[in-house]
């Protein structure tokens, strides 16, 4: 939810009284330039085909992060809470799908035409289930604390994250679970050394469709308008006759449904799940939401894509053990120079 408040652009950071801003900026810029030259040299060395291939993987990866990040950003936009349980709702989506697929008699190796309908049903059911769970979480753990000190709901969010992980742990145990490999293995050749598989297309397709539907809903529908109004000023929205509780519950529902879809798609793409997956995925997705400017749906989508691409470029061109460091370093740099994220607007202090 954008906050349509006309405001001046964020002013660049100044370290008055500490170090001369020019010195710091120069040092950081030189560092960024050096890293940039190194990256370009690497990319040049491996050739354009490899570059395009990594880009494809990055977009697919990023689509999943975008699906999770949108839920984070919506919830934050409406009640200013970092919903730590969100990453685990994402995992829950994958787990529910994993339990549902055998019920439809879906097995690996069946032709795509036989699989596609059960998969769609599974996707929808998982989304609804995750949405329901998240509404329940909001009702139990966040709504009673709406007027409590700001950090109290944060702690219940952590508690809910542990609870969800605990339930999934009890359900399937501490192991990596195999998610059936159902999508066709066909790959379309895009160019020399570059292919895109049905898996990548599915992931990207699901993310794009859901994001478009969501943004249409938020911008065009009456409920979407209510959500935007609530995000902007809860009291005023209430005075205008908007049912705040329903609107907030709806936000939680939609956010979780997207995360649940992300979980199913993750399972289909990577064919592996584990109960504590949501922790790091949630962390990256939250990073993506902040990177894009928290509270902004398009920002979350762009941030998710960016994080996914940074991840696959770091994995593909450098050492994957440093990927996490690279992601968070990019985050810190972006926030230092653009304190409200890429698409975020400056919100006046309340």
């Amino acid at each position, binding site marked *: 939810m954008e906050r349509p408040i006309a405001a001046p652009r964020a002013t660049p950071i100044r370290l008055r009284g500490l170090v001369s801003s020019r010195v710091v900026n120069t040092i950081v810029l030189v560092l960024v330039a050096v890293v940039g030259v190194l990256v370009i040299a690497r990319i040049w060395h491996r050739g354009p085909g490899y570059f395009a291939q990594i880009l494809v993987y990055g977009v697919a990866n990023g689509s999943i992060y975008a699906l999770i990040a949108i839920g984070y950003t919506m919830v934050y936009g409406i009640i200013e809470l970092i919903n730590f349980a969100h990453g685990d709702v994402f995992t829950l989506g994958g787990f529910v799908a994993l339990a549902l697929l055998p019920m439809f008699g879906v097995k690996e190796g069946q032709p795509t035409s036989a699989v596609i309908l059960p998969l769609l049903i599974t996707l929808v059911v998982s989304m609804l289930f995750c949405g329901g769970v998240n509404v329940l979480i909001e009702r139990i753990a966040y709504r009673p604390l709406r007027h409590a000190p700001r950090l109290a709901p944060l702690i219940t969010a952590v508690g809910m*994250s542990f609870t969800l*992980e605990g339930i999934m742990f009890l359900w399937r145990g501490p192991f990596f679970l195999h998610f059936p490999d159902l999508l066709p293995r066909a790959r379309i050749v895009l160019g020399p050394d570059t292919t895109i598989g049905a898996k990548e297309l599915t992931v990207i397709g699901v993310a794009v469709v859901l994001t478009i539907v969501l943004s249409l809903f938020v911008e065009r529908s009456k409920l979407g308008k209510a959500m935007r109004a609530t995000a902007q000023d809860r009291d005023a929205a209430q005075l205008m006759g908007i049912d705040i509780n329903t609107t907030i519950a709806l936000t939680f529902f939609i956010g979780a449904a997207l995360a649940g879809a992300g979980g199913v798609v993750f399972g289909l793409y990577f064919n592996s799940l584990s109960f504590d997956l949501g922790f790091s995925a949630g962390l990256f997705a*939250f990073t993506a939401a*902040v990177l894009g400017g928290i509270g902004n749906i398009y920002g979350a989508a762009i941030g998710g894509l960016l994080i996914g691409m940074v991840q696959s470029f770091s994995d593909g061109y450098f050492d994957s053990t440093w990927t996490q460091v690279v992601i968070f370093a990019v985050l810190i740099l972006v*926030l230092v120079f653009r304190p409200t994220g890429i698409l975020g607007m400056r919100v006046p202090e309340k």
Partner: protein
Amino acid sequence: MIAALRRLWETDPRRDPNTLTYTLLVAAAIVVPIVAAASGSSYLIGQIADAGVFVLLAIGLNVVVGFAGLLDLGYAAFFAIGAYVYAELASPYLEAMGIHGGIHLPFWLLLFVGMFVAAGFGALLGAPTLRLRGDYLAIVTLGFGEIVPRVVRNLGPLTNGVNGISAVDPPEMPVWLSGPWSGDPLKIVTDLKVGDPVGYYLIMAVLVAVCVVLVNNLQRSRIGRAWMAVREDEVAAAAMGVNTVRIKLLAFAIGASLSGFGGAFYASKLSYVSPDTFSFLVSVTILVMVVLGGMGNIPGVIVGSLVIYYILYNFLPDLPGYVTAIANSLGATGILQQSGDWPGLGEEVSRLKFLVFGLILVATMLLRPQGLMPSRVREQELQKGTHEDTTIEDVTAATTGVG
């Protein structure tokens, strides 16, 4: 007349829960080791000494979160920095780098080195980022908290990567206690082998006491009032002439320094450091300790950290044992055995660990959103709702509560 008596009754220090808590804590700190030593249970004392490290960390994070109102989600990073500074400079490990025998600097010096290095990193991270609004700062600190253990893990030759550094030196008594001049009067102290839990316990107790006094004084100083002003309304604080960036940076650095201090002690106590000890989970645990105890109120934070430490490191690991014992005494031995999908009662209960901890967190926060022992000022604000309702009596009561 009656009003005066009433005020006397209300401001009587004996009715102040904080005084009561401090008294109980000090009494427990003295009695428990004596009882434990008499019953020969050195394990318990070791556990309390470990809990002391978390008390230190929680007090430090309380400066950042409770006093200055800055949400820090990467606090364990400074803990790691302190621990690794100690481990590098007081272990044989650096021999691998070509330094014969490694470096063995004295414990008491390194406590402060760890502290200052951590504070330096805190200032380094804080300087460019403290202008960010609340939750952006939280995510930057979270990122830093993830970066530090990763870097430590990846810098193989310098830090020994995942394997960590072992055989770290244990603490020694300060030179002025163990020097040649320390004759019989100090015999108890000099004879104390620091390797044993009682020695650690004593050092820990002294360090915690010193930190509590220091932080309490800070809270009542000009700086402490500035922190509170920034926490309540940053714009108004700036308008009143508080240099908000500097004051926030100070909170950040002081918090980090306490964490580094605790880290150095922890490394010497465990005699081993590894990057896995300093994950995001540790940062969250410390935050939970602060919020659950009662943000901004030092005795509350101490109680909160002791409670959470007990739940996480004693209650939950022992839970399967308890449940198995109960089932045994009830004669229900059937559910103890593993069969099919059922992993046996003990194993099943140990799998419940996450769930139980999560539910405990949710339940306590729902029952006491302000924490177990909230700061008096904050409690009054909460009860009265808004500032507009606050009367002069409230303000006097609140200010006498804080001093």
